[in-house]
């Protein structure tokens, strides 16, 4: 490996080196900007940075392009205050908002969106340990997204997860981009090997926890090398679902990102990654370039068929093939979970659930579902709270009066009705939903648009009624 990529991949790691997260100024949870199709819009990270050097890290792209982040300052959430809030004693304004809309009704907490909860910082400091133990004591439903197998397998954490295993309130997504240890070392610098991660899947599955293989990001040219082998090993380890989303490229590449893109280009087999993504990504989706459906199809088919054959939850967070989800949660959480129904406590007020239902309806009855804004986004109080929209990326550039009156629902409505927006359902899902008219409130109405791959797959005998 060349020194440049090691140096670059460790940029945040080196910035955090020998630091303990003493500052408690990190604000989390927040509402995810992916709220339009996300089943768990309350997303949580306990630390402001992560020690893992994944060259594809979207949080790195996001943070390194953020002019507000001037230095790498490792911050932690206030663990004691978070525990108090979870217990029903919020003090600050935002804590009260989150308690009211989420904690009070034990809404599923998704931990690990922008930093790994079990990275080397946790391995050394155990700063999140009291909070995780408290979540167990409260029987609070929590989904961890992690690669930190080495931390999860420490005696201290083994004991904690053994202690809470009978109530099944925890679930785990273990992320992998390849099953090959040598290849993973080139892509994910300083991260426990895939073999180690499969070991932790087995350990947690054997304890009775819901475990998901998280093929995210699925990098064409890397993840598809021996994909079947990885799926088989994960199945043997005890996974209950597979969740996938393809690597996307931010067109706003800074110097560090360019170094990473050049490195990834070599690994995937193209001289210019930016050119590859420019040619193959629909322009209607804007500057965050996502490859088109045709490029992804063979890989999605492999994973979907594997899940169908082995009765696993198939989950797709990618805008393409999102309709193939077999539960309403594109993270791979089950629709029903009798061992602890609190793990079902995610929202259906989002597009993934409604697209899945529309695909089922079409393949079971031939009917084409209609999507109305107020049917898709309803019943969730957080959508209408004026204090909960300020984390959304679209607030940038808005005047103060707008910000103060903005709600998540207003942002969703704007995107829903603006056919020029990359976040508009027609553009984002690239013709999976097409506008067919307007409703009585003057919002666009969309219709499910069956695509040619569905016909081909059905002819091949693939069951699309799941």
């Amino acid at each position, binding site marked *: 490996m060349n020194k440049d990529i090691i140096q670059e991949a460790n940029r945040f790691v080196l910035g955090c080196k020998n630091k303990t997260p003493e500052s408690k100024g990190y604000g989390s949870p927040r509402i995810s900007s992916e709220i339009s199709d996300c089943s768990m819009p309350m997303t949580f990270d306990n630390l402001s940075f992560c020690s893992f050097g994944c060259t594809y890290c979207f949080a790195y792209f996001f943070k390194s392009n953020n002019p507000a982040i001037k230095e790498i300052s490792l911050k932690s959430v206030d663990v004691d205050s978070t525990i108090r809030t979870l217990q029903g004693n919020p003090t600050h304004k935002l804590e009260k908002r989150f308690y009211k809309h989420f904690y009070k009704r034990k809404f599923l907490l998704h931990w690990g969106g922008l930093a790994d909860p079990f990275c080397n910082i946790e391995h050394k400091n155990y700063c999140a340990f009291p909070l995780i133990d408290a979540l167990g004591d409260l029987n609070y439903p929590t989904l961890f997204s992690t690669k930190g197998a080495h931390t999860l397998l420490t005696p201290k954490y083994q004991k904690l997860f053994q202690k809470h295993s009978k109530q099944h309130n925890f679930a785990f997504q273990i992320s992998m981009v390849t099953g090959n240890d040598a290849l993973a070392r080139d892509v994910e610098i300083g991260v426990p090997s895939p073999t180690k991660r499969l070991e932790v899947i087995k350990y947690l599955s054997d304890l009775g926890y819901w475990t998901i293989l998280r093929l995210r990001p699925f990098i*064409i*040219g890397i993840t598809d*090398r021996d994909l079947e082998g990885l799926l088989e090993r994960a199945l043997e380890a005890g996974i209950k679902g597979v969740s996938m989303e393809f690597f996307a490229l931010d067109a706003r590449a800074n110097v560090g990102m360019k170094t990473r893109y050049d490195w990834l280009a070599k690994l*995937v*087999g*193209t001289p210019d990654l930016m050119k*590859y993504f420019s*040619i*193959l*990504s*629909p*322009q*209607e989706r804007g500057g965050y370039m996502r490859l*088109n*459906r*045709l*490029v992804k*199809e*063979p890989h999605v088919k492999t994973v979907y068929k594997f899940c169908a054959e082995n009765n696993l939850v198939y989950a797709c967070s990618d805008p393409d093939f999102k309709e193939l989800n077999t539960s309403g949660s594109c993270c791979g959480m089950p629709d029903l979970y009798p061992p602890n129904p609190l793990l079902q406590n995610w929202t259906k007020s989002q597009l993934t659930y409604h697209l899945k239902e529309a695909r089922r309806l079409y393949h079971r009855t031939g009917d084409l579902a209609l999507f109305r804004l107020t049917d898709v986004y309803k019943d969730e109080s957080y959508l209408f709270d004026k204090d909960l929209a300020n984390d959304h990326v679209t607030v940038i*550039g*808005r*005047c*103060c*009066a*707008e910000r103060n*009156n*903005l709600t998540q629902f*207003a942002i969703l*409505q*704007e995107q829903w*009705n*603006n*056919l020029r927006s990359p976040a508009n359902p*027609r*553009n984002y899902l*690239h*013709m999976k939903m*097409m*506008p*067919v*008219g*307007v409703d009585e409130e*003057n*919002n*666009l109405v969309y219709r499910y*648009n*069956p*695509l*040619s*791959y569905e*016909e*081909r797959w059905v002819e091949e005998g693939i069951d699309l009624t799941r």
Partner: protein
Amino acid sequence: MSTIQDFLGKGKTGDRSKKYQELSKDKTEAEKRELEMHLLKPDKIPPHVTESADYNLFSPISTLTVRMVFPDEEALALFKKHFPVSKYVEPSLARMDKMMATVQLYEDGKITYDAKTNKVTVKK
């Protein structure tokens, strides 16, 4: 069943996918990437020609908002001297009280404006 994708690809969307799968067999990663760029370019979304929604999001904020354009910088400076303008994100009036009090005087007939002479008269 025909689809919009098929319409755009003249029924060849499936053909392209099958052709790629045949041609990519036993190819190196670099050759596969080249093939993808040649065969699997995305379709364009057709223009939307039916009804469109007239979205009016930040109601009542958007319906209560007006933009003011001054003839020159001097006029703007004069305005700013008497009415506080905030420059947060984009310039806007920080407080409306003084302007609304003035407008109310017009409404009540206590101030009149003669367009011919460009003069304002205050009734006592």
